[in-house]
């Protein structure tokens, strides 16, 4: 097969499946699921160190930053200022300029506040961050984010943790035609076929957390998602047949017994 590489801002990504590290039973399960997924981008959150716990375990003891690309998020931030604060701390705690930018607009839906998101993207891009904004499945917002300096856009398939799949494939398709930066579906993927649909549309990658961590068997689902993303990507590159209303026979009519 011809080489099919994902490169963003000069960084090469070895897998088109990106995974989150939230909601796992423990850090060992996190480690095993991430490994089974074959992902090389791993998202993390930034939170206070537990000062009192002397035997505290660190996520990075399980997810080796030399092996994986650590992508810190600004989850839980509802204002531009908060998101900037978390992004700057994340950069200092980590080893790269990458940030998965979230500016959340509403607690119940966790839909992004796109006005704040565009503003924060612009500021962080100017500060040299490689910004991956988590956004709505709205092409106009995606374009504004690209103009603001986003390295890629991350439209949701459905609300975070909902598992509802790709609710608006047509909008995702329009986003793909609207922006030049890579498009990475983030949120909503509930099972393997959802990931495949995202990739078949032509998305550059898919980010999954709850879809894997929340499965009955996260390790199996991690592996399923790995194959689903590869299958979807290959199908996209192969080019699907057009949909038709009526049948067209696969076997020749010639040589049939009369």
């Amino acid at each position, binding site marked *: 097969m011809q080489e099919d590489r994902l490169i963003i801002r000069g960084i090469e990504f070895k897998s088109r499946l990106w995974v*989150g590290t939230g909601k796992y039973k423990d*850090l060992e399960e996190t480690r095993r699921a991430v490994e089974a997924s074959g992902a090389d981008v791993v998202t*993390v959150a930034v939170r206070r160190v537990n000062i009192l716990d002397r035997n505290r375990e660190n996520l990075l003891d399980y997810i080796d930053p030399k092996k994986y690309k650590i992508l810190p998020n600004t989850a839980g931030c509802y204002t531009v200022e908060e998101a900037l*604060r978390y992004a700057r701390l994340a950069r200092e705690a980590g080893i790269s300029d990458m940030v998965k930018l979230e500016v959340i607009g509403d607690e119940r839906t966790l839909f992004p506040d796109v006005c704040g998101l565009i503003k924060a993207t612009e500021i962080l891009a100017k500060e040299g961050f490689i910004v991956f904004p988590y956004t709505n499945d709205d092409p106009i917002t995606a374009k504004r984010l690209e103009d603001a300096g986003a390295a890629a856009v991350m439209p949701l398939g459905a609300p975070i943790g909902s598992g509802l799949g790709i609710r608006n494939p047509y909008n995702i398709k329009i986003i793909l035609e609207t922006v030049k930066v890579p498009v990475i579906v983030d949120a909503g993927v509930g099972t393997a076929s959802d990931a495949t649909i995202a990739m078949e549309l032509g998305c550059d990658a898919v980010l999954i957390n709850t879809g894997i961590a929340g499965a009955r068997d996260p390790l199996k689902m991690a592996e399923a998602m790995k194959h689903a993303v590869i299958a979807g990507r290959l199908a996209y590159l192969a080019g699907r047949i057009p949909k038709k209303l009526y049948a067209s026979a696969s076997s020749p009519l010639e040589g049939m017994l009369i």
Partner: protein
Amino acid sequence: MKIRLNGEDYEIEGELTLEELLRRLSILPERVAVEVNLQVIRKNDFKDFKVKDGDVVEIVNFVGGG
């Protein structure tokens, strides 16, 4: 002197640099980021940065997230 450390009151006797504070808390500097009074302190400055009475110190690290 008294500082606010990750949202709690914290007593310190005498002068202390950020590096010494982290050591006292058994925290590896390479795995965390530190903010003092809303200002991110670069890791290279930990050994010289002196914590003052009333400072609001936040020490964060990475945890599981999506």
